[in-house]
């Protein structure tokens, strides 16, 4: 918090130190490493085979991994996105760390150190209070997964992917890699080669999961790579809301998080997938997320990116059935040293499909946020309607915002709108608020809160409160 005695620059530095101190206290701590197995740094064919052997996987999955490794090795690193991408050192990563024997169904059975971490992050309490199920992943694998009994009785499956591969092999085999093939991009190939953990959700026809399912992802060790793989299948007419959160300790060297998430919304189903990404500022977050919506189905991505060093993530929805609806709500907050390259993609592949993309970004202290989006209407997708709105707020002269929208329309009878704004926190707005006795810092917070409110209000209340707290924290000391 700025004090009158400090110069503006010193006040800002002090505020940033406060910010880091809070992250360290709340999320940035790390535990002693009592691991069952920690792979040496680097990626080899032997390691990929070893991961598969550790998990006693069927032969087809081992072949899937090895073929994916070949794709990863053959592909160059993308040259678009962010110059920071060149800093990723694939040889300086631990690709597999096993902290516990299996995913437990009782918190009491989770190893003590790991349990303490999740206690500190408030996860068991959240499960008791407002969640229908919880998954907790620590390093490479899930340490806990539980779904409430009533939902289990209705046939809802919520388990970690490693268990799903054992217990529902035919479903995993049928769906994995069908929306995001291993060869889709270099990072998807990497994930496909070394994936571990993640969630598998199946909701039977007509079942509405009223409370959210949550997965919490935690990196503990330095130079860690976390590669979870998630599949959600919402069968006809069903509904599910899945929420994920993630944090890591703050280290001086980099870690890598590269997930692949595939969502299948069958006819009339609805999936909402909410992410509150708050990785520490040494994590590269390079994620591929894609959804398929069949006839009358709805998929909504609510994507909040606050943490990480670099995030490149563009959740997409393929509207494959008539009247399907896709929605992407994205918030990106880029502070000092951060680049949030986020956005979304919607593909209208069927008639009378509808979509919205609302993206909001805030840049401060030299941070950079980019909106990168694609809206595509295929030939034959007549009657498609879409609206894309991306707004950027710059809090100072040193920060940066870019917008890279792509729109491809292959049909005449469509209704497509695109709006983009970039604004600075206006003198006039500040003056108005300050004339009512509100100090400058408080006034800026109010303006930022008002800016992101349309998206934050879409979060479950507990997360909206947390998001407002995080934004407030990020905003402290922003007025020098």
């Amino acid at each position, binding site marked *: 918090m700025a004090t009158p005695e400090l110069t503006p620059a010193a006040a800002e530095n002090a505020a940033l130190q406060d910010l880091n101190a809070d992250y360290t206290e709340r999320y940035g701590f790390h535990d002693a490493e009592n691991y069952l197995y920690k792979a040496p740094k680097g990626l080899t064919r032997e390691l990929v085979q070893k991961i598969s052997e550790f998990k006693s996987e069927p032969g087809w999955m081992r072949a899937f991994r090895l073929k994916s490794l070949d*794709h990863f090795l053959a592909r160059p690193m993308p040259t678009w996105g962010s110059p920071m991408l060149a800093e990723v050192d694939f040889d300086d990563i631990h690709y597999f760390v096993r902290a516990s024997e299996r995913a437990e169904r009782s918190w009491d059975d989770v190893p003590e150190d790991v349990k303490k971490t999740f206690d500190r992050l408030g996860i068991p309490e959240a499960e008791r209070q407002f969640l229908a199920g919880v998954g907790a992943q620590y390093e490479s694998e899930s340490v806990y997964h539980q779904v409430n009994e009533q939902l289990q009785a209705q046939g809802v499956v919520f388990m970690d992917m490693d268990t799903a591969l054992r217990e529902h092999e035919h479903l995993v085999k049928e769906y994995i*890699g*069908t*929306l*995001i*093939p*291993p*060869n*889709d*991009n270099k990072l998807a190939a990497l994930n496909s080669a070394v994936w571990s953990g993640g969630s598998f959700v199946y909701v039977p026809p007509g079942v509405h999961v009223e409370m959210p399912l949550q997965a919490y992802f935690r990196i503990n060790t330095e130079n860690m790579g976390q590669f979870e793989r998630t599949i959600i299948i919402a069968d006809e007419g069903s509904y599910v809301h899945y929420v994920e959160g993630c944090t890591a300790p703050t280290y001086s060297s980099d870690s890598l998080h590269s997930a692949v998430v595939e969502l299948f919304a069958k006819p009339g189903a609805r999936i909402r997938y909410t992410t509150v990404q708050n990785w520490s500022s040494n994590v590269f977050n390079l994620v591929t997320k*894609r959804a*398929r919506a069949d006839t009358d189905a709805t998929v909504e991505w609510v994507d909040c990116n606050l943490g990480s060093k670099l995030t490149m993530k563009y959740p997409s929805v*393929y509207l*494959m059935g008539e009247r399907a609806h896709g929605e992407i709500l994205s918030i990106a907050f880029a502070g000092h040293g951060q680049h949030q390259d986020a956005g979304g993609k919607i*593909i209208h*592949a069927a008639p009378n499909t509808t979509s919205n993309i609302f993206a909001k970004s805030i840049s401060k202290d030299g941070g950079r946020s980019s909106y990168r989006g694609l809206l595509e209407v*295929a*030939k034959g997708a007549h009657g498609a309607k879409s609206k894309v709105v991306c707004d950027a707020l710059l809090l100072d002269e040193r920060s940066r915002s870019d917008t890279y929208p792509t729109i491809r329309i292959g049909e005449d009878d469509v209704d497509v709108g695109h709006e983009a704004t970039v604004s600075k926190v206006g003198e006039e707005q500040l003056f108005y608020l300050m004339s009512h006795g509100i100090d400058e810092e408080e006034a800026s917070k109010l303006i930022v809160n008002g800016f992101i409110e349309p998206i934050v209000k879409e979060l479950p209340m507990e997360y909206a409160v947390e998001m407002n707290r995080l934004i407030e924290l990020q905003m402290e000391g922003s007025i020098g």
Partner: protein
Amino acid sequence: MKTVELVDVCPLSELPPGSSRIVEWEDLEIGVFNCAGDLLAIEDRCSHDNGPLAEGEFDESACTVECPRHGSLFDLRTGAPKTLPAYVAVDTFPVRVEDNMIKLEVD
């Protein structure tokens, strides 16, 4: 009225089961596959980004070809993609054998 033209591909003996080849006709390139004895032909163009398709991995048992650029699997019988990112079918062409010569029907 459409006029069908026949394009020579190769003698049947040069395209045994499990093999494929690419032929050119006017400005089109077409992949011809021998899928366990069934002769199938699809346009050599992925509908995702118009890159080459037929040189990708051919799975004879599933009768699919995998786009070498982004991994979409195409059904050789229908031309339809079985996986994203492609979502539009590519053209297919009838194939026949006359006097031990594989021929493509194009129009």
